[in-house]
């Protein structure tokens, strides 16, 4: 039975599958789904209700819905119903006065508040103070405005109650617009395609990835080849030092960079002593902010690539180097013709791996410049994160943020597929030798 052969493997794999399905695949799928909704903090995550608000009416008017109908929706209607009478009694209005209203006005409906008040003034047990009368009158008023309706049918009934002769299409439009929950839409992508910010963000992201990647590769190469030629003790000092940025918790790393570049910090003090312009380099100007963003990420990247390159260099047979020296090769020729060819695969790996991780990295930028000054150093991933989850105004737009993230994934997965081909994935996945 083929299934039984798999049983043991699946058993061993099941914890991993369970966790990965719940907290990896499901979030990814959810993100893909949410990208096609207008879900935000105001629509909530679960379903919503129907509410007609003043803002909504203004919006509908701008969209060309008949103004007369909208005005009537905004009106307060005074209706003497048994419920309203009970409400008045509960609110402590003089029972004799309520009895008067019940006797003479029950079933009557007024669209004008003043007309209703005039009628009330004519009643025998009316209150002395005009203010009390107004309070009592308000208790009979009801407006469709700002009332919550649990579903579309209830909202529809209420709208038709106010506008009995409105055309079907108008009612449909008002009911649909009054929905407060999230709705399906492709508007997020349309908005991203048409927004001028998008292009700027893409340019920023490409610049950030390209600059940081170059820093990572070239500084990594320089460090690895440099330490390769130094005596082991000196080289050891550098490799100890360069592992630190990758080990340091990101918050502390950010604090150290702030100390390094802010007012009163190290560079600031040094620049002041030398008579150079001294200001908060992290926030004060766009070029310095970019430099810091690239250095903050580049140091971590260089730390990664240096280790990788160094271990590849250790694999060079030392006889090859001796032979080249005997043949009279200069140091530069040695690097160019023996060392660099050896590093071809590690360099390719660093480039591909770092492109992916830089594309989606934003923690360091978030904790240092946070995209500032203005939004000049913001990148796609940071903007997506800020849009969806981390916003000063609290206007969290899950849908739009998810749409941005989905576009990042499309780019990322495309690149991964290319890289997997490049790195001969087949070599990594041999079949098991015991088949039972």
């Amino acid at each position: 039975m083929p299934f039984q052969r798999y049983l043991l493997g699946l058993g061993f794999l099941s914890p991993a599958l369970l966790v990965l399905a719940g907290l990896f695949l499901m979030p990814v799928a959810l993100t893909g789904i949410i990208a096609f909704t207008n879900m935000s903090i105001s629509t909530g995550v679960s379903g919503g209700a129907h509410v007609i608000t003043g803002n909504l009416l203004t919006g509908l008017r701008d969209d060309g819905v008949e103004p007369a109908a909208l005005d009537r929706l905004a009106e307060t209607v005074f209706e003497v119903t048994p419920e309203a009478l009970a409400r008045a009694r509960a609110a402590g209005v003089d029972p004799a006065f309520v009895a008067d209203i019940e006797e003479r006005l029950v079933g009557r409906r007024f669209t004008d508040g003043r007309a209703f008040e005039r009628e009330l003034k004519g009643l025998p047990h009316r209150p002395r103070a005009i203010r009390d009368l107004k309070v009592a009158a308000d208790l009979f008023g009801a407006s469709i405005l700002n009332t919550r309706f649990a579903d579309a049918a209830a909202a529809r009934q209420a709208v038709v109650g106010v506008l009995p002769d409105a055309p079907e299409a108008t009612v449909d439009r008002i009911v649909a617009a009054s929905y407060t929950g999230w709705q399906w839409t492709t508007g997020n992508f349309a908005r991203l395609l048409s927004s001028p910010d998008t292009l700027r963000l893409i340019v920023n992201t490409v610049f950030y990835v390209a600059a940081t990647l170059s820093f990572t590769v070239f500084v990594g190469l320089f460090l690895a080849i440099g330490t390769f030629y130094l005596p082991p003790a000196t080289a050891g000092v550098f490799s100890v030092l360069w592992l630190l940025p990758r080990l340091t918790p990101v918050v502390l790393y950010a604090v150290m960079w702030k100390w390094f570049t802010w007012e009163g910090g190290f560079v600031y003090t040094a620049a002041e002593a030398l008579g150079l312009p001294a200001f908060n380099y992290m926030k004060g100007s766009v070029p310095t902010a970019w430099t810091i963003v690239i250095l903050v990420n580049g140091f971590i990247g260089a730390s990664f690539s240096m280790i990788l390159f160094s271990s590849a260099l250790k694999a060079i047979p030392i006889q090859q180097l001796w032979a080249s020296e005997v043949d009279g090769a200069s140091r530069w020729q040695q690097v160019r013709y023996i060392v660099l060819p050896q590093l071809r695969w590690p360099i390719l790996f660093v480039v591909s791996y770092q492109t992916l991780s830089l594309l989606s990295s934003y923690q360091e930028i978030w904790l240092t410049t946070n995209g500032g000054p203005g939004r000049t150093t913001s990148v796609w991933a940071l903007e997506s994160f800020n849009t969806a989850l981390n916003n000063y105004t609290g206007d969290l737009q899950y849908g739009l943020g998810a749409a941005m993230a989905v576009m990042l994934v499309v780019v990322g997965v495309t690149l991964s597929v290319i890289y997997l081909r490049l790195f001969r994935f087949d070599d990594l996945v041999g079949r098991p030798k015991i088949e039972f």
Partner: protein
Amino acid sequence: MRRTLSLWPLALLLALASAPIAIMYLFLLVDTVTNAPPGSAIPNALTLAHWRFLVDPRVTGDVWRPTVTTLLFTASIVAIVLVVSSTGGYALSRLNVPFRRFLLAGVLVMHAFPLVTLIIGVFLVLQFVGLYNTLTGVILVKAALMLPFGIWIMKGFYDTVPWEIEMAGVQDGASRFTVWRRLVLPQVKPGLFALALFAAIDAWGEYMLPRILAPSSDFQVLSTYLNAVSDPDSTTYNFNLFKSVGLFYMLPILALYAIFRERLTNIFGGGTKG
């Protein structure tokens, strides 16, 4: 002799490139026990005042509760990652699993998957299942995010175990499970240890998940604690204090680094290569 002399310019260039790091980490140590006059970075007085936060909760709030929480947080994550990766990696390396190629490719792609895509979805999943704003939720998410890496590393280590060991065990009548538990697992101990070390350092430094997935909860880990303390608008604006708290936070990592330097270099370099 001539050889060493000619290397001086190289060493100097390297030192220059490393200067920012050297300065930052040197002052991370020095500034916690000294004071410098205004307008200068060179300290002129020794003091222990910046470490008062350890005994006096009025300085930055109680530091020991976040420390205990962080320990718990890290230990739980390491435990989950080790258990799940060691079984999952074994299945992918040695056992018959349907869609094996597909699963392996999936693990690789997940490893490189942009976290920002996940975090929005994870946020919603946690809200649905009611683990939003809880330590359990953050632990589960962090462990899950580390799993693809863990599984991939463990698969690599299992791949190097000779098949003969397992075949001998099976020949002697042991079940595959017993073979794994008693014969194979001891063979991959270095892998488990490396993974534990890596997971511990990663979890210890984690900031974003607690911050985003448990923003208003009553627990703090040291990363969020340090971030709150080092707020530039705070009344205790003082980088010497921030660095003291930061150094306290990083001490366990520095200790691990001092003891296992060789091994850490291998994990952080070769590890991600798979």
